[in-house]
């Protein structure tokens, strides 16, 4: 079992497979992924484009866009398999127990609704008995916590800047005290300084509300700063997962090592930005055996032949033949 700690996990994903059909064939965006997450922990899901991290995030909420579909596995939230729930119940869970912060705040808000109405609608959908004044009151309190001035409550989304819209997104995700929050590249589309503001806000809220957070990103700096545990994904699979400090201090999987070394570091530029040779794999016809082997500096005999299984190495789990 991936990453079990002392407490029973809040989220337990087992052997998840998400597939979609393209003109050229079937693609396994998420290929047999298993991990678990404890309450109040922050897990970073890190990888490059098309590694499956966003698809994995969407699959937890069962909002994988077609033609993608979940074909195997379990997603258990406090013991309940979300994949088996009827759609009505899943809708109650979305926004309520499990919520998502989306990447692009520009298009994630309804331009025809005032900001406060986004919140009021959220409250009313999950509790039809709530009175409008109460909903409004809760919204105002949220604005405070988000650092948005109260007099902006009547505004429309286009009157908000990018950073403020992302704060609104965070507010919407936290409004109903969810058990689990999935943040999909929450700061990627933001300017540097605004990104820092949003990260600081997330850190604050995380601490204050003891949030359980899955943070999906390709930015190694954000992972280092915000997460307790990290799962590194490549070609739809988790290649290494473990505590953040250990992963950075002593990366086991060659891809983890390569990824960390390729990250830009503004303080130590000479140590950063080392390339990984080759190109990302073609998921329609991926390499045989270990999918990373064509680009791996440590490739040896078993790598093109068999796919490595996850193996426990101290605090971590690694899928690499070097540790067989």
């Amino acid at each position, binding site marked *: 079992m991936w990453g079990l700690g002392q407490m029973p996990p809040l989220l337990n994903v087992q052997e998840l497979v998400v597939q979609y059909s393209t003109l050229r064939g079937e693609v396994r965006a998420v290929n047999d992924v298993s991990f678990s997450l404890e309450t109040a922990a922050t897990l970073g899901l890190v990888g490059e484009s098309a590694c499956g991290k966003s698809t994995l995030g969407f699959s937890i909420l069962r909002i994988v866009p077609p033609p993608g579909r979940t074909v195997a596995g379990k997603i258990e939230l406090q013991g309940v398999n979300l994949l088996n729930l009827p759609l009505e119940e899943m809708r109650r869970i979305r926004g309520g127990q499990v919520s998502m912060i989306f990447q692009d705040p520009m298009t994630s808000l309804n331009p025809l609704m005032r900001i406060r109405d986004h919140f009021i609608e959220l409250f009313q959908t999950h509790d039809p008995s709530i009175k409008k004044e109460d909903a409004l009151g809760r919204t105002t309190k949220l604005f405070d916590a988000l650092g948005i001035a109260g007099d902006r409550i009547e505004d429309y989304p286009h009157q908000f800047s*990018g950073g403020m819209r992302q704060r609104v997104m965070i507010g919407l995700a936290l409004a109903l005290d969810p058990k689990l929050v999935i943040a999909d590249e929450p700061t990627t589309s933001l300017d*540097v*300084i605004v990104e820092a503001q949003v990260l600081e806000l997330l850190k604050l809220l995380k601490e204050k509300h003891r949030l359980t957070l899955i943070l999906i990103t390709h930015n190694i700096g954000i992972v280092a700063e915000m997460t307790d545990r990290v799962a590194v994904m490549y070609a739809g699979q988790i290649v290494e997962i473990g505590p953040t400090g250990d992963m950075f201090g002593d990366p086991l999987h060659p891809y983890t090592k390569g990824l960390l070394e390729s990250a830009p570091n503004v303080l130590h530029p000479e140590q950063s930005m080392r390339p990984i040779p080759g190109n*990302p794999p073609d998921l329609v016809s991926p390499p045989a055996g270990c999918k990373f082997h064509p680009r791996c500096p440590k490739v040896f005999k078993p790598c093109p032949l068999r796919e490595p299984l996850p193996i426990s190495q101290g605090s971590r789990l690694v899928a690499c033949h070097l540790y067989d």
Partner: protein
Amino acid sequence: MLSRKKEFVRAVDTISFTIERREIFGLVGESGSGKTTTGRLLLRLIEPTSGEIRFHGDNIGELSPQSLRQFRRRAQMIFQDPTAALSPRMRIGPAIKHGLDIHQVGSVPERKKETLRMLERVGLAPPEAFYDKYPHQLSGGQRQRVVIGRAMILKPEFAVADEPVAMVDVSIRAQILDLMSSLKKELGLTYAFITHDLATANYFCDRIAIMYLGKIVEIGPRKDVFKSPRHPYTVALMSSIPIPDPKHKADRLIPRGEIPSPISPPPGCRFHPRCPYAQAVCSEREPQLEEIEPDHQVACFFPCT
């Protein structure tokens, strides 16, 4: 000095700088800083409202159509979005060759040979296999190599690189930058490197200009600007970036608020409403770039130490 007025927005407002031969000059800023507009002005892809841009001493705004075409051979652009920068209906061989066709360089068979050589040079091997491919058959990093190859086949002296690695995977970024670097050595290139990513600028550039809302607020050698940033905005930028080291404690100097709209920039120093060190004079007069160290200039009345 150049400024450009697009309706009522001064995207670039009265900035002056020089780029030395063989230098990698970084233009760093966030959205609305004017860095992208400046890049296009440098190649006369947009016309300046006032001011001059001199290439080898000649004002490019006054070039005849013929000399302009000559200029285009010597000054090229590398674009940010490799997918959008390539015509989806043009195979990549002809796309790279196109510059040679436009300027009628060499004979027709020589052009094809040169294109194959360039394909190999940018790392798309075997070149014959890539020659007939369409852009959608390539990965993002490969497309960016095509964009670079297309610009470099004309053997330019100067290249404006507009966020060339922003849309490329992290592990491939260094590959692309290494390619740009080796091409620089081979062709004796000068680069204007536009980016919002300070870390990449620190890795790649020789000199840096930090831009904010259409103005240059700090300019100097890369080492100096990064070791001792003087403008409060530069300091804020540097402290904001997440560092890929869990042991590093983020000690951020975050200015309040966000970048104001360029339509009505703040009076005086444009950064003053957000600056933690702002004083009365900052809203009344605009600070000019002044040398604070040899070759290191700052536009601020109260630069940091």
